[in-house]
């Protein structure tokens, strides 16, 4: 009965999702310090920057694209992490993966100065990978494996340690402190196509790997022993999927700075609407994550107009209550 309802409502859900994404994109080019009208939007989207409104729209386009890309990457990455760890609280922010990427980028900035974006990209991914492995190993050792509590605590503790190290790097360098601090908040403001281009291949790579792992994640959801019984090499499935997830959130962090909670909230919403199969959760997480981050960015531009609130703050304040609600209302050991 409920299965039928899920099946018949899925296409509707997908249609609504695509509609939301388009609407979010339109909102994003319309609102900001200056609200633009329809003709200005058409002019700006067409590349006509002779009017102020047109120029404003044109400058909002890459920003919107970056928000959508990063949101999609983070949403997908969170969904994969929840699948790998079978943990409803998994999120690149909560698990300390973003903090690892952030420390790596800050070290690069302090040592190398303004190196090309590709360098940040690869250091961010390396940092994310190291942090992810560390957290998973720490939480997974011992009796009971990586329970939600142990994972969340290990993530929080690693985040605290990495943040402390980041500050240690920044403190003697007054010259880069302001730059680092504004980057650490996580935002998509001032995006240009040049900033987006280098991360695209990595995101595409991560997305392909992650989406290809959907069936494996469904098998893992049955439990390690059942999955092994069904012929899945459990550790290899986890490793491959994790590589995709780390590439995604490392690339997103390199481009925007650490943005938390998107990866936590989005898969849960998708699970509510589209059911528990990762073949549905993963692709819909991309679209929902993109829509969420674009909307959060628009919200950040509106609440403090004409100033802006970085999108990382908005997602934290939207996401933390959801996190707490999950903790309160679910048996967190389930998934």
């Amino acid at each position, binding site marked *: 009965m409920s299965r039928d309802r899920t099946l018949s409502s899925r296409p509707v859900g997908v249609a609504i999702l695509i509609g939301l994404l388009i609407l979010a994109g339109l909102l994003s080019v319309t609102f900001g310090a200056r609200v633009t009208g329809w003709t200005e939007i058409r002019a700006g989207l067409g590349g006509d920057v002779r009017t102020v409104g047109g120029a404003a729209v044109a400058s909002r386009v890459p920003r919107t694209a970056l928000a959508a890309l990063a949101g999609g990457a983070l949403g997908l990455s969170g969904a994969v992490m929840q699948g790998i760890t079978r943990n409803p609280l998994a999120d690149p922010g909560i698990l300390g993966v973003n903090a690892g990427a952030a420390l790596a980028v800050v070290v690069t900035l302090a040592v190398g100065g303004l190196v090309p974006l590709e360098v940040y990209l690869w250091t961010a991914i390396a940092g994310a990978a190291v942090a992810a492995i560390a957290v998973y190993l720490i939480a997974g050792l011992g009796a009971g494996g990586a329970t939600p509590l142990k994972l969340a605590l290990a993530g*929080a*503790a690693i985040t*605290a340690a990495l943040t402390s190290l980041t500050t240690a790097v920044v*403190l003697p360098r007054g010259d880069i402190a302001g730059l680092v601090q504004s980057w650490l908040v996580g935002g998509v403001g001032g995006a240009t196509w040049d900033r987006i281009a280098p991360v695209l291949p990595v995101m595409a790579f991560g997305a392909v790997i992650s989406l290809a792992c959907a069936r494996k994640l469904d098998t893992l959801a049955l439990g390690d022993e059942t999955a092994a019984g069904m012929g899945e090499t459990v550790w290899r499935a986890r490793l491959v999927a994790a590589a995709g997830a780390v590439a995604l959130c490392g690339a997103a962090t390199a481009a925007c700075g650490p943005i938390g909670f998107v990866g936590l909230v989005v898969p849960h919403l998708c699970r509510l609407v589209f059911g528990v199969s990762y073949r549905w959760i993963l692709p819909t997480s991309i679209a929902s994550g993109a829509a969420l981050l674009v909307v959060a960015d628009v919200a950040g531009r509106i609440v403090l107009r004409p100033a802006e609130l970085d999108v990382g703050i908005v997602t934290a*304040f939207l*996401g*933390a209550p959801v996190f707490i609600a999950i903790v309160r209302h679910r048996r967190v050991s389930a998934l």
Partner: protein
Amino acid sequence: MIASPELRAVRAEARRRRRLVLALLSTMVLGVIGLSLCVGHSFVPPGAVIAALTGAADGGEAFTIRVLRAPRAVLACLAGMCFGMGGAAFQTLLRNPLASPDIIGISAGASAAAVWCIVVLGLSGMAVSVAAVTAGLGVAALIYVLAWRGGTAGTRLILVGIGISAMLQSFIAYVLTQAPSWSLLEALRWMTGSLNAAQIDQAMPLAVALAVFGGVLFALRRDLETMRMGDDTAAGLGVAIDRVRAIVICAATALVAFATAAAGPVAFVAFLSGPIAARLAYRGGSILVPAALTGAALVLLADFAGQVLLPTRYPVGIVTGMLGAPYLVLLIVRDNRRGTSL
């Protein structure tokens, strides 16, 4: 009930070890205080230090000792004790070494309020302390209420705390981006915990807080030890678990918040003190006093190292943070393998 001679021998041995450890820790704390009074940018011989402290000497050296080094050492000692005791109380109560106030959001609440006051409102001194303590208590209450579902469970409390903490960290990061560049480094330094601006009149409220809230925790130490065995067992043994839990959370939060207000959220002291003290002393007795002494020794040593031993003058929180990170990994790995907590 008459204990067997073997049991009595074991208990006597445990008491002896406990006394030995307490004596050692106290000596260490006093020793480091003495060291940090004598050694700094310039060396002052012990005789001159005593003369300066008793008011028998005057001049540059006496100023250095009385105004610069002594308040710093006193504040380091008191803050360390508050962090150590508060942290150990949380860890014992929640039966998890990772559930220290700096990880479950209590310190983050105090810091968020303090940073907001410093950067946005331009306040300093007492007002910042009051705000930090109030916010620390407020966040603890919020966590407690949000984790309440017909009784609190430790797990839920910790997880809610992590969520709140993440939100507050993001708020702090935002406030720091609003800081003008001249106060950003100061705010950052405060955020990691620093004794740079230590003054002797900061020590008084901290000492009172330690006496009052430390006293409350000390009075409840047996109930706390019993709760280590699990809520149901403790309830069966006659502990009013919800009342004890509420009081312990309030008192431990107050300790941590007062210390945070005075010295900033010195990274990982609350987290490290309990487990280190447990390794040294724990054989069935209460962990609170050894943890307080360990905390004091940690902050004093780390501040000394940050001032004298390292090439750049780092604030104390950076040193404890760097010590804390590898120890954290070690601790989790070992405890997880053993399958116990603390």
